């Protein structure tokens, strides 16, 4: 059955594969701004439209701020809408993304994760998308190109669901996914169309049925509006799980519900992370297991909505959790790590050590992970669990350089 749904299976670049997935979702309007860093996603979509293979309207925007605003308008007018950006571009979109969430407009955005300036550096970390965490946007982080392709198809269905109606973002690591090549399966357009029916908005800007969007609202009602957006995001968990399972039934692939666990059944130490570093951690886990260490890993697939209950359950039996963060909140620490600590507070759970690593594209090797595990175990055994987060592998020589 699954083979019948395959359009092609070939070695493809991540950006191109994602553009093919977006094409199969048939957005009516695409808007983008080509700032560096952008990716080949928007160029390939432009090519598909130019070739007549995709019947979408493509608007070349004057900034990411406008790109996000254009798709805000097009989805309000009832069209499935898409944009993509990275890094500074995502920061520039931030105000609009809050506006989309509050106005309940289900735009789909690809966030190709790259570092924030300064120092200017176009490599991968998670700082850009993590800044958007308070907006109300759904964020699913992916581990490889196939997962990026399949998650794009799923996320339109999640965002546009009548009980969700929130903007949604596939967060995929810059370069590691966007610019590398892997064997990828692209699904037949008809198969995707059957899985993902056309966008059928509950509300739109229709002169026959005029509505006011973006009212001035007093303090006696604002909290309730914010609460409703928050509730919609919390409730979207169910939809994310349902769509992942429906996708699995039809296409055969599943990347976890909100989390994906690997070798955690009897694990005493569990690593927690997001994105492509999960693959690296799995390699390290296998090696550590060979040496008799009971280690496992949890991939946080859905970062927003935050899988608090799911993490509490998944981490309940281990004695030590090591959270690997590719982003941080200045003076507060790793963002994922801080949130996991918060959701386990007042619970009987493991000790937690939080490392900040992989910033600005610095490679995290299997050896780095093994090193983290060994160091964490020693800290736990000696009762010296650090209170805050730890920047891993800092170059002390560079820090001591007077020129810095």
């Amino acid at each position, binding site marked *: 059955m699954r083979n019948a749904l395959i359009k092609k299976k070939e070695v493809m670049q991540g950006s191109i594969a994602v553009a093919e997935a977006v094409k199969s979702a048939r957005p009516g309007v695409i808007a983008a701004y080509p700032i560096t860093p952008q990716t080949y996603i928007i160029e390939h979509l432009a090519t598909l439209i130019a070739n007549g293979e995709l019947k979408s309207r493509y608007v070349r925007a004057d900034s990411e*701020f406008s790109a996000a605003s254009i798709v805000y308008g097009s989805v309000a007018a009832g069209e499935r809408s898409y944009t993509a950006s990275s890094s500074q571009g995502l920061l520039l979109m931030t105000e609009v993304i809050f506006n989309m969430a509050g106005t309940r407009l289900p735009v789909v955005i690809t966030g190709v994760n790259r570092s924030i300036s300064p120092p200017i550096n176009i490599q991968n970390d998670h700082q850009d998308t993590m800044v958007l965490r308070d907006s109300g946007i759904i964020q699913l982080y992916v581990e490889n190109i196939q997962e990026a392709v399949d998650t794009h198809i799923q996320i339109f269905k999640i965002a546009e669901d009548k009980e969700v109606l929130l903007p949604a973002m596939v967060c995929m690591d810059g370069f590691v996914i966007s610019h590398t090549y892997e064997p990828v399966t692209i699904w037949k357009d008809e198969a995707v169309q059957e899985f993902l029916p056309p966008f059928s908005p509950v509300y739109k800007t229709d002169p026959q049925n005029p509505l*006011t969007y973006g009212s001035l609202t007093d303090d006696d009602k604002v909290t309730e509006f914010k609460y409703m957006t928050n509730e919609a995001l919390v409730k979207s968990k169910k939809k994310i799980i349902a769509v992942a399972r429906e996708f699995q039934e039809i296409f055969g692939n599943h990347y976890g519900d909100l989390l994906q666990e690997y070798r955690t059944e009897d694990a005493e130490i569990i690593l927690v992370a997001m994105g492509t570093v999960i693959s690296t951690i799995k390699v390290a886990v296998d090696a550590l297991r060979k040496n008799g260490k009971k280690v496992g890993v949890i991939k946080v697939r859905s970062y927003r909505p935050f899988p608090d209950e799911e993490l509490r359950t998944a981490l309940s039996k281990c004695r030590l959790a090591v959270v690997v963060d590719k982003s941080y909140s200045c003076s507060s620490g790793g963002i994922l790590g801080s949130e996991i600590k918060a959701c386990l507070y007042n619970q009987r759970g493991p000790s937690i050590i939080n490392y900040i690593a992989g910033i600005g594209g610095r490679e995290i090797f299997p050896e780095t992970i093994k090193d983290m595990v060994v160091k964490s175990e020693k800290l736990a055994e000696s009762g010296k669990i650090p209170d805050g987060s730890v920047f891993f592998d800092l170059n002390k020589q560079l820090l001591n350089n007077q020129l810095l």
Partner: protein
Amino acid sequence: MEGKDRKNNFAPGHNACPGCGAAIGVRQIMRAAGENIIVVSPTGCLETFSSPYGGSAWEVPWVHPLFENAPAVATGIKAALKHQGNEETRVLVIGGDGATYDIGMGSLSGMLEREDEILYICYDNEGYMNTGIQRSSATPYGAKTSTTPIGVCSFGESCRKKDLLEIARAHHIKYAASGTIAYPQDLMKKVKKGLATKGPAFIHLLTPCSLGWGIEPEATIEFSKLAVETALFPLVEYENGELVNIFIPKKIKPVDEYLKKQKRYTHLFSKENAGVLAEIQEMADANSRKYGFRQ
């Protein structure tokens, strides 16, 4: 007008100040705009007084996104309508001078460059009025605002107001015009033309503000007329880049007649500011020369 003709899709009962030039202007715009239209407004006075939750004055679809992105949102709406094969529904942006001259200028330029049929109307009350009368880049030379106060080192606004119509025209748009609320037939005609333009169109609409200008609420029409009669705000119309219409006042009045009754300019009528007054008169004279008014 009687019965059905009196219906206006900008309904009464909104929260604008008495005599608000912007509200009068929007009534005139919406009388001309027809039913099959979607309106986008950036943050500003209009958004504040027309959209209190549960009491919207809008009887057409109306979208208030953010302060600086209404032209881009309108572009997106237009793109969606085109994708749906809907060529009939019009898209109109009505934004204040802060959203247009200042924070949304980049977004507006993007909209004017693209070829979408969208009419952008800037209602210009020459400052950030509903937030306490701060200066915008539409605030005229010499005017007192809360961020251009007068003092021993200041005569008020020290920069010249941008020439918005020329900025719009520089995008090679097919329709660009100016209007004020004292000439409603003229404005309504221009709105209809702007909405019928095959491409982006732009109208600069002067809307006096009693609060910010320091004039009586009942005087907003009078001052919009004086702005035209002193040649400080010429009423013009450009089609396909050509000047096709100019309203020529019978007699050009000295700028003093416009300025002296506005509290924002009172300080200019002191000895030390005589030079500033002369400079403003020269700005009006330059307009008269440009458009061939008899001085």
